[in-house]
């Protein structure tokens, strides 16, 4: 048998193709960068991020989690927007998870009505565009809730209006630190006691319940001894709006709720798929041992189902976080609306602003993915 010429060997071709592919990708990137540079030069534009801290933002933002005024820098405005994004994503993820797990489990219920209602919920949430849902909930809130002057009030301290939900704001005095210290000391002691009862789950549960009750009671006593160290600032109608207290603006409520509503449909399906992936022999075996249904779900089915649930759950969380950029449709001031919107528009730094926004979303997504991978490794059944 004669040896093939080197350029006819499969391994050579394989390596050559790989090298060629990499070169092509690099050439494309170089060409893109060159094109950007050429167009920047043609427009006489410079590239730099100085605008972020050199110029005052000059615009106001209606929901700021940190101190901010129109004289703050564009960087601070971007930070305010980023925190607003985080707020929506965090609340949205928690809400979507709770709703999704509940609906997913209900969909497998043997009660015909319950399972059909759960299916209807899933089909509706999954099959409507999320932008429409956001506009729908925003419309519902601003058109059905009353004007501040006719606010719906609960015990004259919580007010529902189409400008937002106003609740009393707790103001903590120094004495409250003692209350917290007593409470957490109690919880810590309970935890230590529980660890000793590791081998007897039933006793461990009763120790835990007793410990928590005891801690709460101690904290209550400390609360009175410290002389009621919490005061409440009640919102009150002054002029056009309610002032004081804590407020949730309608845009936040509508956006968070719409995103959670939409994503929960997907999560519910993942949960259902996960539960159904567990062999029914497992359930039958548990039943034959006389375990009640809820404990079968909690102790046998869910731990095995999590292997299947977690990977798609990660992408649902990523979707929710990225979809939060639709905030702009209802004027919620998230990262896209501040840095990628008004700042971009006032400074004309499209390239820089958009690159930054993309980098930040990438970072958030990678962080969520990293956390979920870590969690996935934890819930994975060993030995499989």
């Amino acid at each position, binding site marked *: 048998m004669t040896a093939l010429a080197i350029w006819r060997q499969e391994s050579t071709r394989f390596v050559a193709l790989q090298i060629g592919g990499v070169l*092509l990708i690099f050439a*494309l990137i170089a*060409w*893109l960068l060159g*094109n950007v540079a*050429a*167009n920047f030069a*043609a*427009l*006489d*534009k410079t590239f730099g991020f100085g605008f972020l801290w050199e110029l005052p933002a*000059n*615009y*106001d*933002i*209606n929901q700021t989690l940190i101190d901010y005024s*129109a004289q703050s820098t564009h960087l601070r405005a971007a930070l305010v927007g980023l925190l607003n994004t985080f707020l929506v994503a965090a609340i949205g993820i928690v809400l979507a998870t709770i709703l999704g797990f509940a609906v997913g489990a209900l969909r497998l219920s043997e009660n015909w009505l319950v399972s059909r209602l759960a299916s209807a919920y899933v089909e509706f949430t999954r099959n409507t565009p999320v932008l429409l849902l956001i506009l729908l909930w925003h419309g519902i809130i*601003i*058109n059905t809730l009353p*004007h501040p002057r006719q606010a719906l009030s609960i015990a004259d301290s919580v007010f529902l209006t*189409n*400008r937002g939900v106003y609740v009393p704001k707790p103001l903590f005095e120094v004495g409250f630190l003692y209350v917290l210290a007593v409470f957490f000391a109690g919880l810590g002691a309970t935890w230590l006691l529980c660890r000793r009862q590791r081998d007897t789950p039933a006793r461990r549960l009763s120790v835990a319940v007793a410990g928590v009750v005891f801690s709460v009671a101690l904290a209550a006593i400390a609360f009175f001894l410290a002389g009621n160290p919490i005061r409440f600032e009640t919102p009150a109608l*002054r*002029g*056009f*709006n309610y*002032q004081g207290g804590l407020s949730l603006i*309608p845009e936040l409520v509508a956006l968070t709720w719409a995103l959670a509503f939409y994503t929960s449909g997907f999560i519910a399906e993942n949960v259902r798929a996960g539960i159904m992936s567990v062999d029914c022999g497992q359930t039958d075996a548990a039943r034959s041992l006389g375990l009640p249904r809820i404990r079968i779900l909690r102790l046998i089915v869910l731990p095995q189902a999590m292997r299947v649930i977690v990977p798609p759950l990660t992408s649902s969380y990523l979707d929710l976080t990225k979809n939060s950029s639709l905030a*702009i*449709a209802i*004027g919620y*001031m998230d990262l896209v*609306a501040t840095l990628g*919107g*008004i700042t*971009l*528009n*006032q*400074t*004309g730094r*499209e390239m820089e602003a958009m690159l930054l926004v993309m980098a930040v979303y990438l970072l958030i997504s990678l962080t969520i993915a990293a956390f979920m991978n870590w969690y996935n490794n934890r819930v994975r059944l060993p030995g499989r």
Partner: protein
Amino acid sequence: MKRILGIAAAGLLLAGHANAATLDEVRARGHLQCGINTGLVGFAAPDDKGVWRGFDVDFCRAVAAAVFGDADKVKFTNLTGKTRFTALRSREIDVLSRNTTWTFSRDVDLQLTFIGVNYYDGQGFMIPKKLGIKSAKELSGASVCIQTGTTTELNLSDYFRANKMTYQPVPVETNSEALTNYLAGRCDVYTTDASGLAATRVATDNPEAHVVLPEIISKEPLGPVVRQGDDQWADIVRWTLNALIAAEEHGVSSANVRKLATGTSNPEIARLLGKSELQGRARLGLAPDWVVKIIAQVGNYGEVFGRNLGPDTPLGIARGLNGMWTRGGLMYAPPFR
């Protein structure tokens, strides 16, 4: 692979076009691409047949008449306050005619060329009559609907700070979104240019239920914008505006322009209408009778104003600052000489 080559080729084409003259580009395309508002009665709004009409739309038509001799050779791109400059700079449109305020930063830092002022405006406030507010100074604590990416957003912040008042901004993208929020009571006040308030007010079911407060808190000189760096194109657009104004000043209207074009004893009108030589006109690359085409098809500045915004329209805006300089207004065109 084919695809990548395709993308690369498209990119090269774009890069190649970056420095082409706008006039050649427009001629080759066969129509003018003009950026207008997403919907503002009187300035740019579709009529009952879906045709875009308004003050800003008519300016686009005037430029098309100057370039092609046909005011209908124009296509419109609807832009929000935030997308307008990007659209212009990325060559998506040739002219931006979208009630845009001329400011230092936009002219110098954003590298746009404002070719003049076609509407002198100022920012005001509109509020439901039933709230009983008589002055903008009483607005402390109010929720204010405001279009993002505009100068009004910055003026609002300055005004409330200067008067030591607080407010809750309710940011919106477009005028119609602002109206929805305002009518639903999400905000107490809507603030934008006074002309925009007049247009928004007549778009409500009951205009009488809303008042525009007397304070005008800023200067908003609105005008058409082109990209910086193409002087020939800037000149065409600038002198289209000047022709509209000069025509009104000299009494040239769509009714008499054909007749005046056949002969007139007024030398300025003769130069304006291409009857006697106007030195340098050929450099613009336009036909000798370009102004005749504009005025015959679109009308002069006064006609455009009257048709879209004037007392005979639902908006009923008086000429005021936008009157001819000969009648106490600010409209003043450099001579055609």
